């Protein structure tokens, strides 16, 4: 039997290992909402009723996938990251809180648990209550969303440095944290996925400046998207300088963790909408591809890491250029968006790109289908994406809140049932055609 790391690396090298590797929680885009995690743990009998679960990523309210669940589900990958979360504070000093659907959770000490008069929760950058809030969770909501904090834009005096305040060298303390975590988690035999931020260019989660007390530059998302069309030189300059800082940080991180990482999460910028690409191929090639290629080229020249791009939506029309930028791994493979058919993706990109996601439709089937629907889709996706390796099973983006727990249980039961190589159908076909 292969170790988890060997299994993931076989997939990343486009080889069939002993079974399709499985991820839950190794990146901020492949996890599970804390409410769904609580329900899953209860359904699996891992906890006494009422036992809280930890919120490890407060923006999307992701729950911490702990070793008991990793073992129970046979999860092969874990995350190595920096000590602070997206709002710039550490996940420590845990305190109890209850989500809008009544789930008992533990949240970091700096997480705001006292609602405003209207019931909303306001998040503060680095927990600093003297700054304007940077994010808001509606009273009935399950996630935070950024609050736009946009100073008036003076077109004649735009300074790219204003959009770079949050990008800084990784300090020694953070490096030591990364080194310790890589050593600790590496000893488990699981594949380590690095997620260090800083190389996600124009990412909607970060453009509003969630860690900054008083963000300057272009911080309103609508203005940011418009800038791709009407301020391209500004955006290009921001990206180039951000790229320098990002590369220097990757070098420093590589110096402490070496090749212990199997892959590194480079970018989470969404390039797709439900119906088509958010930006055109020309814009991708002019603004994003040069910096993506620089990062990927450096990593491939100096490390054994594979590089990971996350983009929601329909990106079929951008994928040639994304692959040419040198990415090895694509997530979340949103097959529910236009043109993103599983077989089409596998046929066209299966020899170049590892699909890390696409395992189940989280917009329709997982939240609104039956356990039988879930099982059928999981089986089909394993067969399509898993053929010949190049597939790490993951849901399409995080398992969201309000998902029936019976469907989540059915999901992992089906993965367990159908993930072993060689696939029965494939073996039968090989036998029939006399090919191995």
């Amino acid at each position, binding site marked *: 039997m292969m170790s988890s790391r060997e299994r993931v690396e076989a997939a990343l090298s486009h080889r069939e290992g002993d079974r399709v590797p499985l991820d839950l929680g190794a990146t901020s885009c492949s996890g599970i909402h804390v409410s769904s995690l609580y329900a899953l743990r209860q359904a699996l009998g891992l906890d006494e009723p009422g036992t809280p679960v930890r919120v490890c990523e407060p923006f999307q309210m992701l729950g911490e996938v702990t070793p008991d669940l990793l073992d129970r589900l046979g999860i092969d990958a874990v995350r190595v990251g920096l000590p602070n979360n997206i709002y710039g504070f550490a996940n420590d000093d845990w305190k109890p809180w209850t989500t809008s659907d009544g789930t008992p959770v533990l949240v970091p000490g700096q997480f705001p648990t006292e609602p405003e008069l209207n019931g909303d929760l306001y998040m503060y950058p680095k927990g600093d209550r003297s700054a304007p809030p940077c994010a*808001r969770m*509606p009273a*009935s*909501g*399950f*996630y935070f*969303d950024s609050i736009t904090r946009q100073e008036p834009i003076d077109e004649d005096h735009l300074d790219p440095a204003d959009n770079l305040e949050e990008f800084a060298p990784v300090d020694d303390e953070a490096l030591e944290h990364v080194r310790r975590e890589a050593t600790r988690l590496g000893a488990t035999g699981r594949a380590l996925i690095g997620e260090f931020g800083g190389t996600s260019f124009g990412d909607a989660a970060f453009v509003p400046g969630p860690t900054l007390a008083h963000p300057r530059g272009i911080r309103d*998302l*609508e203005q940011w*998207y*418009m*800038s*791709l*069309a*009407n301020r391209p030189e500004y955006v290009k300059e921001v990206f180039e300088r951000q790229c320098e800082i990002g590369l220097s940080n990757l070098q420093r991180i590589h110096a402490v963790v070496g090749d212990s990482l199997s892959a590194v999460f480079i970018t989470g910028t969404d390039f797709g*909408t*439900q*119906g*088509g*690409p*958010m*930006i*055109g191929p020309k*814009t991708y090639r002019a603004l994003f591809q040069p910096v993506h290629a620089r990062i990927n080229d450096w990593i491939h020249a100096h490390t054994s890491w594979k590089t990971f791009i996350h983009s929601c*939506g329909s990106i079929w*029309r951008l994928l040639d250029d994304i692959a040419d930028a040198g990415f090895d791994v694509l997530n979340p493979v949103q097959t529910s968006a236009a043109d993103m058919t599983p077989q089409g993706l596998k046929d066209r990109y299966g020899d170049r790109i590892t699909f890390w996601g696409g395992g189940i439709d*989280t*917009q*329709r089937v997982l*939240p*609104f289908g039956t356990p039988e629907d879930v099982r059928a889709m999981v089986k089909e996706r394993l067969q399509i994406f898993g053929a010949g390796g190049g597939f790490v099973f993951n849901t399409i983006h995080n398992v*969201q*809140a*309000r998902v029936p727990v019976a469907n989540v249980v059915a999901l992992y039961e089906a993965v367990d049932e159908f993930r072993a190589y060689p696939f029965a159908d494939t073996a039968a076909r090989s036998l029939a055609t006399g090919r191995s």
Partner: protein
Amino acid sequence: MGQLEELRAAVVDGQKTTAVAKVTEALAAGLAPEKILQEGLIAAMGETGALYQAGEIFVPEMLVAARAMSAALAVLKPHLVAEGVPSRGKVVIGTVQGDLHDIGKNLVAMFLEGNGFEVVDLGVDVPPERFVAEVVNGAKAVALSALLTTTMVNMCDVISALVDANLREQVRVLVGGAPITTEYANEIGADGYARDASSAVELLCQLLEV
């Protein structure tokens, strides 16, 4: 190139300052405000929407065009009002309760406005009763947006609230947002689903027969 053609080109190209200048020039030249609206702005929105649907322009270009249109419309509007040019109907739009996403919703609002509808934009995280209140105030259509699977279900609450207030028959409900489909619109009893801003305009014109 004629003034209105230049206006249309400026809007499609997202040239806000030029678009405003062209509207001002057209008004000064004595062109009828309704003609400027129809042949300048509505034509520009139609062209922009068609380019988007054909995959020739994308979200950033749509946004700059819609912003240019809004700026030009702001100059034109007082003249339309003064001339007594009627709107094509009042529409109330918003992102449903619990959901804070608004870029797509804003685009739809700007496109509707640029196509001659009176738009009341209630913003994000809008409780059902606020939509109901606008229908009481004369809105002929309700446009609902949701990005999340956790909040799309809240569209039903708005429709139920309209039913409870005995207003459902007199108002058309259209829905949109990433996880929404025609099937979902049918399932919850909406009148239609629009996949993008210009489809929303077409659907609304069809539903309101304007």
